[in-house]
């Protein structure tokens, strides 16, 4: 009898909570140690609103998770919310009416005024309507330098890319790989993009990547870029690791002197107990052109025909962008917050560099926002081939021009 009452009571309890709280499945691909800790901040904050965050982590990179997410939405089995990189990836899903319109919430909370840089919100906006919540800013234009490696050969830590290249012969003599590079297309492509901004400058980059001007891509500025990349390829000859974090580990253990990688590499240095400015140095824009792109992650909310779910989606959207959650999440993630009006004084040396660049407005729209996934895949394939073969800089440039000329 007693157990019966217990059962009834718990059943009533379950019924009662079900009436108020809604389970919302959230898919994302943040599965590494630091990333999971950051996501837990979101979950904690969302659970505090009385709803339940059902974690739908998909192991693997965005390239693995994105097709799964998209096919679930297309196949009529949408999740409550999902991470995607904002930009053009979700454009067609929005056009097909599969994503929830967040414009009302965005206007009520004045996202236009708080999201900095505004380009983040623009990337979430299609035809004047807002469809996603930006949650962080990641930038790819960094080189991470090992102090230990340069001490070993008795050189100062370089202040920019040119000094780094000049130091390379001495490093090689000492058996240190100058540049660590994971042998994967996206990493090689990221290095290419970063070198482009450093060597060709922002104007040339903008003409090619945003306006898709094939003439500039064929011009002298980009010729210098491809020669610099060909040179970087030689510096990375002895690096035969695959994953980015293994390449970062070469820098942490002083086996390699530097790595061109996005600011997510910082998490690895932190986990290894290294201190920015003491054990490693980061140079945004390779120390030449101090600009960052403003890629990052955003959450989209697929259309689900259920009032309670809709309400929970809106609550999640406003939770994600609230000041406390932004601070807690981004400190764990090592990324920059999407709002400029919050206190990030607890961030480390490298994050502060990023924040001040952001405050000065030295920002570029990220590749995801300019070129379609199709064009990016083509460039990535080209870079994957270029870095692992002996293709000449001229050939690579010619093929790059073809891709840009046919880009939509």
């Amino acid at each position, binding site marked *: 009898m007693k157990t019966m009452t217990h059962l009834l009571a718990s059943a009533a309890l379950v019924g009662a909570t079900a009436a108020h709280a809604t389970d919302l499945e959230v898919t994302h691909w943040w599965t590494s140690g630091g990333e999971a800790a950051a996501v837990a901040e979101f979950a904690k904050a969302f659970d505090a609103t009385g709803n339940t965050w059902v974690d739908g982590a998909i192991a693997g990179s965005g390239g693995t998770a994105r097709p799964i997410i998209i096919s679930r939405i297309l196949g009529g089995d949408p999740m409550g919310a999902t991470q995607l990189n904002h930009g053009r990836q979700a454009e067609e899903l929005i056009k*097909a009416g599969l994503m929830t319109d967040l414009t009302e919430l965005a206007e009520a909370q004045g996202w236009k005024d708080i999201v900095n840089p505004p380009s983040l919100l623009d990337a979430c906006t299609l035809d004047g309507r807002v469809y996603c919540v930006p949650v962080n800013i990641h930038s790819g234009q960094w080189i991470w330098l090992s102090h230990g490696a340069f001490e070993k050969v008795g050189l100062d830590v370089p202040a920019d890319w040119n000094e780094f290249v000049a130091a390379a012969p001495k490093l090689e003599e000492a058996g240190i790989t100058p540049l660590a590079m994971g042998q*994967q297309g996206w990493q090689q492509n990221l290095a290419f993009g970063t070198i482009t901004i450093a060597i060709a400058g922002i104007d040339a980059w903008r003409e090619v990547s945003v306006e898709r001007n094939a003439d500039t891509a064929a011009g002298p500025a980009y010729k210098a870029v491809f020669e610099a990349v060909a040179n970087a390829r030689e510096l990375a000859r002895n690096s035969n690791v695959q994953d980015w974090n293994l390449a970062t580990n070469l820098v942490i253990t002083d086996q390699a002197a530097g790595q061109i990688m996005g600011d997510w590499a910082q998490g690895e240095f932190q986990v290894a107990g290294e201190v920015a400015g003491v054990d490693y140095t980061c140079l945004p824009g390779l120390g030449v052109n101090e600009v960052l792109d403003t890629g990052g992650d955003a959450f989209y909310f697929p259309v689900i025909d259920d009032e309670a779910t809709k309400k929970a989606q809106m609550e999640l959207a406003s939770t994600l962008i609230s000041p406390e959650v932004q601070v807690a999440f981004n400190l764990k993630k090592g990324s920059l917050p999407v709002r400029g009006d919050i206190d990030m004084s607890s961030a480390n040396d490298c994050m502060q560099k990023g924040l001040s660049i952001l405050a000065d407005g030295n920002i570029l729209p990220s590749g995801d926002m300019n070129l*379609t996934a199709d064009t990016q895949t083509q460039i990535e394939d080209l870079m994957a081939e270029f*870095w692992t073969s002996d293709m000449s800089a001229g050939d690579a440039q010619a093929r790059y021009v073809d891709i840009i000329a046919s880009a939509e």
Partner: protein
Amino acid sequence: MSSSSKSRKPSGLFRNMSAKIASVPMVLTALVVFVGGTAWTVLYSFTSSKLLPKLNFVGLDQYERLWSTRRWIISIENLAVYGFFSMIFTLVIGFTLAAMLDRKIRGESIFRTIFLYPFALSFVVTGLAWQWILNPDLGIQNVVRQMGWESFTFNPLNDPDIVIYGILIAGLWQGTGLIMVIMLAGLRGIDEDIWKAARVDGIGTVKTYIRVIIPMMRPVFVTALVLIASGIIKIYDLVVAQTNGGPGIASEVPAKYVINYMFRAQNLAQGFAASTMMLLSVVIILIPWAYLEFGGKKRG
């Protein structure tokens, strides 16, 4: 009633009625899913569909782009190399192992199990295992160097020129067991009297195999050939697990191109064009041959 049905010969359409009704679901599946799906894919390969299929035709643009893409050309070359060697070595090794087992050796079932075991593993497991075995710091190269041969170098997976052979080794290791078993079954089907007759005539063992036994096993070879060929065309997971197309794009294969362009590059039509080319190659090679083999004259 019974007399009338007996007098008129029932038309072929209604003979074995229950069997025909029973096969209707499968016929429908074949028509709608296989034929229908194929036709749909081919149709949309002439459009400019990106993430979602749309019917805006662009003629042969996707195919022109496909054949001017370096990655696709490399994929086709890799498939050709892999296919050629895989076909030859699987047949030769499979038959040799089967012939050896057929010599009434001791412990046959143990060897049979050992040779067949790799086939029980998925391509993903095979790929990962061979990724480690071929890893210069952990695998074969390291073992040989520790045995004293310091200059020994065997690092196929990091060399763009020979990486496809590294994949071939793994593919052979996984696939020959099955072919061996099929060959063994064929050998067991050969009448003992044939051997006796050959012995009486004083024909050597090897010569008997080549001149007498193999021609008699023609149907078994056809089965093996079809199995190997279909395995070659659809190779995907082995490459993904072992090298993921690397280094660079040196070990890409057509199926991987299709998947990547359909989903990662969000360019459906390009992926469809590539898969149509794959289908076309199968059709061109297999259909005339299958027609000669199975159609035409009926064997009694």
